């Protein structure tokens, strides 16, 4: 019977071409939707790698002109001491602009044993950065005062970068090259931290490198990360603001909560995919109505054939099954063509996503197309089964 159906479909290839094309395009759209959804879901399932509750960021733009590096160091050391004296502040650290849940990015390139790795997110952090975000240390240690006098510039890397560089081997003590400047500098890994999903719940952390803030860099920084106790309320926030604003004369100061920034970042990530899903849903509805309409039309056009099949020995159910099988064969042809195109994405490493994401999305898209076609065929199939052969055979 399958061979018979293939013959029937092949001999009606012109009529079936549009239906196959429609299913093929639907497959690609669904594949794109599922690729996005699988990508976001996989990222969502990964641990955050840090805690953002009760962590604030003070953004400042200091207009103060410093005469020397020493005066800069002194200026910010005084501010640090002032803030640390507040009992509500548990940890603090200066940081570069790419703090969690901002769109700001700073990337660099690394090389190890002649292989280049990029882009690597590059963070300028203080000694208190890890404590402020309760980052999970996997290997080695975080920065401390002894790093001031080290021979090589000490850095901490995240687990993703460690896996790329050393696989399952140990990273601590290894020397790698920082290619960010014209002169390549050797840097030494002193610790490995868990990946930190600092771009929101739905985006990956990527490879990351944490650098200890150099005193010379202090004048260019504009973020101060603060971990506060749970009882830190609006009154404390107001006091903190006044303290910092009074100290930094002529500076613009703003305090933000990372918990709120996370919600906002997640929203901005989800809005485009939500719009994409809505557009795709309308397209799918359109396509299903199209498939449904074409199948129904086909059944009306083939009433005499259905009547004949009933006369020569087909039951109502076998007629229904035949029409559903025909639709599923057409869906199979569309899926084969669609899969040929979809499989190019992992093969050519388009969008730099893991092959597993594309393969999962492909499988989901295949299941979805079959379910869609099955659902669209069920009612027309039942209608066909209900055709009265004596009537159908006498219609012209």
């Amino acid at each position: 019977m399958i061979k018979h159906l293939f013959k029937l479909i092949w001999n009606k290839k012109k009529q079936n071409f549009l239906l196959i094309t429609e299913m093929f395009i639907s497959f690609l759209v669904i594949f794109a939707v599922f690729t996005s959804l699988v990508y976001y879901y996989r990222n969502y399932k990964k641990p955050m790698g840090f805690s953002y509750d009760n962590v604030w960021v003070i953004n400042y733009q200091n207009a103060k002109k410093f005469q020397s590096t020493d005066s800069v160091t002194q200026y910010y050391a005084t501010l640090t001491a002032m803030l640390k004296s507040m009992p509500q502040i548990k940890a603090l650290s200066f940081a570069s602009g790419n703090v969690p849940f901002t769109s700001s990015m700073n990337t660099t390139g690394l090389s190890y044993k002649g292989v280049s790795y990029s882009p690597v997110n590059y963070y300028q952090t203080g000694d208190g950065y890890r404590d402020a975000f309760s980052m999970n240390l996997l290997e080695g240690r975080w920065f401390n005062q002894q790093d001031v006098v080290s021979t090589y510039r000490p850095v901490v890397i995240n687990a993703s970068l460690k896996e790329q560089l050393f696989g399952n081997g140990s990273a601590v003590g290894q020397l790698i090259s920082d290619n960010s400047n014209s002169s390549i500098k050797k840097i030494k890994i002193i610790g490995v931290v868990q990946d930190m999903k600092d771009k929101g719940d739905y985006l990956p952390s990527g490879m990351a490198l944490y650098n200890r803030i150099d005193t010379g860099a202090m004048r260019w920084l504009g973020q101060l990360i603060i971990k506060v106790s749970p009882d830190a309320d609006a009154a404390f926030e107001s006091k903190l603001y006044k303290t910092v604003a009074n100290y930094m004369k002529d500076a613009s100061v703003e305090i933000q909560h990372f918990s709120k920034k996370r919600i906002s970042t997640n929203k901005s990530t989800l809005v485009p995919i939500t719009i994409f899903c809505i557009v795709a849903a309308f397209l799918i509805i359109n396509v299903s109505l199209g498939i449904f309409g074409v199948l129904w039309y086909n059944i009306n056009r083939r009433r005499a054939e259905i009547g004949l099949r009933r006369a020569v020995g087909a039951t109502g159910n076998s007629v229904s099954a035949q029409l559903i099988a025909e639709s599923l064969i057409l869906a199979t042809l569309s899926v084969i063509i669609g899969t040929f195109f979809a499989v190019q994405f992992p093969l050519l490493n388009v969008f730099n996503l893991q092959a597993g994401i594309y393969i999962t999305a492909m499988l989901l898209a295949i299941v979805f197309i079959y379910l869609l076609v099955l659902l669209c065929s069920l009612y027309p199939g039942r209608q066909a089964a209900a055709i009265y052969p004596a009537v159908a055979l006498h219609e012209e």
Partner: protein
Amino acid sequence: MDNQLNHSQLITDNSQLTTHKMIQLKNIEKVYRTDTIETLALSSINLDIAKGEFLSIMGPSGCGKSTLLNIMGLLDAPSKGDIRISDQKTDHLSDKQLAQFRNKKLGFIFQSYHLINDLQVLDNVELPLLYRDTTAKERRQLATEALAKVGLSNRIKHFPTQLSGGQRQRVAIARAIVGRPEIILADEPTGNLDSAMGNEIMDILINLNRNEGTTIVMVTHDENMAHKTHRLVRLFDGSQVQ
């Protein structure tokens, strides 16, 4: 193929008919009902058709000929009355059993051929065998034999649209006989053909009846064709008048 069969030859064959009843219709009545109207299509039809008989049914349009044929072919159920085919009562059969019964016992020929234009001649003829437990090789062999019987061995790869009306009807006959049914029900098989083509088709049916012993019931408007059969039944307004 015998093209010059005449009535006297059939009368001779008639004398050889067995007394075994192939089709028995008792008090058949068919009423079509809608919300507002009832139409009596057949009334008190009593008819016995012997095994190997070639019976024709005539009557004006709308007198119930096709309805009667559909009831004999188990494509339609009577409102009242009993049908026995090969001594088997059919009123209790399920949809699946009816389908199997039609597949094994009955062959259908229609005025408008009802060939599937998207399938080649051979595939069209194989169609009834698809609903049986047969292998592809068996189907091909049986369909080729059936096409040889109707003189279309050289057209197996053609599509129906590439054939003349007479050839299409011969394909339809091959499809009807491929499963070696005991009964063939032909609804105006020569209705769309000119007289020469019609005679050709008629000769094939007569040969089938004579050589294979197939019981044939044929609805026709053509007196000449009807007189070539063993017996003629006339209907008028749903009732049997002859």
